[in-house]
């Protein structure tokens, strides 16, 4: 019963959304080149099925690679900021400033620096756009650790590393996963910012671009849907990891 509810309710919501979309297009009598309707999408998917799988996979692996880098770098940065006040004072303004730069403006810069390195550029952008939330949340999680938590191990003569491993790290996991959920969506934006620039020619972003060039509007919408599906898949993968590693943070009955 619970499982039925868990699946049936979101599915019903999606169906309702698609019906509404179809209805709006039909009522307004919009032609395909203005707004495709859901019923145009299955043929588009069917026609380019092979391309969708290939491009979807390219987008996915680059996003995940960028995300992995973001987790690694963000965690290290967060640790530095969490443990050292000097690092915190030094890095915060830099980080905030960097985060404030619209990443779209970096695309031409990166493309110029690393001409032709398409895979590298894409992964780099996914990474650049997504490490910030992780660094900040790990940093805050570590720096706000209550002293008593540290003291129960410190009073036994435990090393800093042991305290980190046994207390600080697990205690920060819920915040870390919260940030990772934000980063997943950001990383997709990063990947597509690069893929959509013409000479690139790979990934769902490029497929979108080719749809635009050829005036194939159903294809463009189909790409958007495919991106949304990938985003959902990756997001729920993070949720599953969270359940495994930080499931304890969910209060019973909450």
């Amino acid at each position, binding site marked *: 019963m619970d499982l039925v509810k868990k699946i049936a309710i979101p599915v019903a919501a999606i169906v309702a959304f698609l019906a509404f979309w179809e209805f709006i297009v039909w009522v307004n009598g919009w032609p395909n080149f203005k707004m495709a309707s859901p019923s145009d999408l299955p043929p588009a998917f069917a026609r380019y099925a092979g391309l969708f799988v290939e491009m979807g996979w390219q987008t996915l692996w680059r996003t995940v690679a960028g995300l992995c880098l973001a987790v690694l770098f963000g965690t290290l940065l967060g640790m530095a900021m969490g443990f050292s006040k000097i690092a915190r004072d030094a890095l915060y303004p830099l980080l905030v400033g960097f985060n404030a730069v619209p990443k779209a403006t970096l695309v031409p810069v990166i493309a110029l620096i690393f001409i032709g390195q398409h895979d590298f550029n894409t992964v780099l952008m996914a990474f650049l756009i997504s490490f910030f939330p992780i660094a900040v949340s790990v940093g805050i999680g570590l720096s706000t650790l*209550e002293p*008593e*938590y540290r*003291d*129960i*191990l*410190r*009073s*036994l*003569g*435990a090393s800093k590393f*042991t305290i980190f491993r*046994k*207390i600080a790290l*697990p*205690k920060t*996991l819920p915040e870390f996963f919260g940030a990772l959920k934000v980063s997943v969506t950001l990383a997709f934006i990063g990947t597509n910012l690069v893929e959509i620039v013409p000479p690139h020619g790979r990934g769902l972003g490029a497929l979108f671009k080719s749809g635009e060039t050829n005036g194939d509007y159903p294809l463009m919408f189909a790409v958007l849907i495919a991106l949304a599906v990938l985003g959902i898949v990756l997001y729920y993968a993070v949720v599953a990891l969270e359940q495994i590693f*930080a499931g*304890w*943070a969910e*209060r*019973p009955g909450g």
Partner: protein
Amino acid sequence: MSAFLIDIKDVTHAYRTKAGPLPVLDGLNVQVPEGEFCAVVGPSGCGKSTLTRLVAGLMKPDKGEVWLHGERVTSPRKTVGMAFQNPVLLEWRTILDNVILPLEIVAPRMPQRDRVERAMHLLEMVGLKGFEGKRPSELSGGMRQRASLCRSIVHKPDVLIMDEPFGALDAFTREDLWQTMRDLRAAEPFTCVLITHDLRESVFLGDQVIVLSGRPARTQHVLRVDLPADRTIESLYTPEATAMLHLLRDEIRRAQGREGAVH
């Protein structure tokens, strides 16, 4: 070598704050013989928690010395157990794994089976049998504090330091825990420093009660509690106990600087 297991000699300490040094302890002396239970009372903010951190070796005093077991304390030691007002249990561990935690640090080579056996023995003694697999959030405040007590003595420390461990509990639960404490002590003796705001608690559990003066704290009064070791809550209503409670109350008032004030 000192005759006392805990020997605090002329300890003076000040915190460095933005507004300049804040003297907290001033020539403090506390002596606790092996196996004794020393209750410490004093006005709020006088420096009691600071004292526990010094004894645990988490901080070094500006002046004076802290000795444990004939050794000068300069850093944390594995033979100390600590319990706080907040039980600070780790939410991601079961109750059993929380109790085992100190053993992972102090006795890394102890077989897991022995650790579990030791922890289960303590959990049973404090009445938590059957709850070992639960998460801390599934337990009541009193039960969490019991688990925290088990954790603080699981590695058989020779000094147990408790900073208002029962302060956040209701009166009945608190009295239950006093009796648990008494039974634990009878089963496996340890030397204990207990910080408390509750005078009845200090008389029920203490062999001596030390009254600290207001900040900066110095020893204002030391009371020997000559009640039998197998005290019950009833013992607190005997004339001797009542007299002690009266005396402590007067001392606390004096420490607060309200000597002679009518309340």
